[in-house]
């Protein structure tokens, strides 16, 4: 059992698993009025008719302790990424049949993007949560890294991953456990992303291990 510092309350969500919403948070603040009757958001937000929405982007569904969810939400097992949120807000009953949220839905996709951008501006506090390294990731971490090989392989990655963090997550300095976990999840398809599934799909354990150590040191 290890501890990793991530945002979110339950379940392990690597830093960029959550697509960044594209929208105008200021426009979203106006739109939030439609939600404010039932949901508080921000520091010290409490549950009302609905659960508080602080840190909702990237939060597991049904995660707020002490709020009585319907089983539609409570037992869904999903994570509120941008896409899922958008679909739920567009059509709550159609997306999650049986949900108790008595809200009609928001048809305009630009408005939903704006609203989600506003929701995303309230981050959950960072909490240390237990996270179990998968056997696949542990096996990769047990392989002796080859730094020179890692440096060579990294040239493929630096076509997309820069020192900055805009659009594509920064991987320099990433903790090897998180790095390896992300890579083996892409490789197995557990975490989906067209590019990263292709990239990881042709990397063996030694290659991932070498990359992980190279990027950890590259800063």
């Amino acid at each position, binding site marked *: 059992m290890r501890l990793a510092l991530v945002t979110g309350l339950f379940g392990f969500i690597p830093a960029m698993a959550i*697509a*960044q*919403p*594209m929208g105008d948070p200021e426009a979203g603040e106006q739109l939030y009025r439609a939600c404010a009757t039932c949901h508080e958001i921000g520091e010290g937000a409490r549950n009302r008719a609905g659960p508080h929405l602080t840190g909702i982007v990237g939060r597991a569904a049904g995660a707020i302790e002490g709020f009585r969810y319907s089983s539609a939400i409570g037992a869904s097992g999903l994570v509120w990424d*941008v*896409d899922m949120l*958008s*679909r739920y807000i567009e059509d709550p009953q159609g997306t999650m049949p049986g949900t108790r949220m008595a809200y009609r839905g928001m048809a305009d*996709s*630009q408005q939903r*993007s704006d609203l*989600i951008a506003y929701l995303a501006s309230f981050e959950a506090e960072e909490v240390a949560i237990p996270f179990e390294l998968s056997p696949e990731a542990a096996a990769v971490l047990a392989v002796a890294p080859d730094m*020179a*090989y890692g440096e*060579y*392989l990294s*040239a*493929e990655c*630096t*076509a*997309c*991953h*820069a*020192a*900055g963090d*805009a*659009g*594509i997550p920064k991987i320099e300095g990433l903790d090897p456990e998180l790095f390896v976990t992300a890579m083996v999840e892409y490789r197995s398809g557990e975490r989906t992303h*067209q*590019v990263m*599934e*292709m*990239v990881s*799909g*042709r990397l063996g354990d030694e290659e991932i291990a070498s990359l992980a150590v190279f990027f950890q040191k590259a800063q």
Partner: protein
Amino acid sequence: MKINRRSFIGSAAAGVGVMSAPMVMGAAHGTPNVVVIGGGAGGATAARYIARDGGDQVNVTLIEPTRTYYTCFFSNLYIGGFRTMESLGHSYGTLASEYGINVVHDWAVGVDRDAKTVALAGGGSVPYDKLILSPGIDFVDGAVPGWDVSAQNAMPHAYKAGSQTELLKAQVMSMREGGTYCMVAPPNPYRCPPGPYERVSMVAHQLKQTNPTAKILIVDPKEGFSKQGLFEQGWERHYSGMIERIGPDFGGANVEVDPAAMTVTIDGVVENVDVCNVIPAQRAGKIAHDAGVTDGNWAPVEAFALTSKMDPAIHVLGDSAAQGDMPKSGFSANSQAKVCANAVVGELTGSRVFPARFSNTCWSLIDTEDGVKVGAAYEPTEEKIASTGGFVSQTDETAEVRAQTYQESLGWYDAIVSDMFG
């Protein structure tokens, strides 16, 4: 690494190189020289990686006439109003100052393969042990009857970025109300397979706002094109009724232009147009032909280190190379350059050479935050660089996925230009 390592190790390193790797090429006559012709996607990357990994054991000279390289990638976004021209310009300062590359702003006008020297337009010549050619494309003479480079102001190609791109955009923006923008699309193979269709999308995006009754006509010699389903769905969704494409079945391969009269003749039928973007058939940059390393329009290379099939001391990268399955893209040129750099440094200094691996991903923007992508991985075989599989965005993705894809393309642009220019 970089400047301090170079200045600290000093000349002692050359001696160590000779002692520890006696079989290494070039060691016999001092520090080996690598000359790179063309400071674009392929050439800048190759120069940077060879200088970085070769350290003091290799001299790198980069020959490039322009002081600012404007990327073709994202130049369509400039036309669409999503980027400024300045944001596409990159200079060679970092390559010179941090990597110690000898940047020569001049044209290479000839290659003497026996003497192993490159002649410069400004006089003088540069000796090489290894020559890397990445001169991009030139146009095939007579490919579109009626058009030649002297007509590029009346009918711009905008397929080398910079003033041509600015000219085309200005013509689009000042087109008469309800006028026709015509694109004469190129036959395969050409630089950036989705490029013409991303351009059409960006022109449509502008016209929709400023000139909504305008029409776009694509005259295309090809049956199909890259990401066709995605583009056509996007055009229907965003620019319904504006864009018409005439494929080869309806005369798209039988086209002639008259730049003075501003007409395009398609299968004998004369059309008056207001803006005409002629993207002719392409071939390797002229210097590759002058160097005698081409066969037909392109320069054949083997797949493991992009070594010319005509001359083992020459590598050809990027658009000019006939390498197999990789599309002619900036991403491909960058990917090939890194494999080539590893092999060249290995040969010159005895450092480790790793197995070649290539990949490519090309993003295109259809409308605001409606981004799509296509990509593949490649591996070298005896015969060619061969595709091992890839992916493409799907039609009917949600707006969020498309917006995310567009965001990725922005991240990619920043990353790849710093991978090229430091």
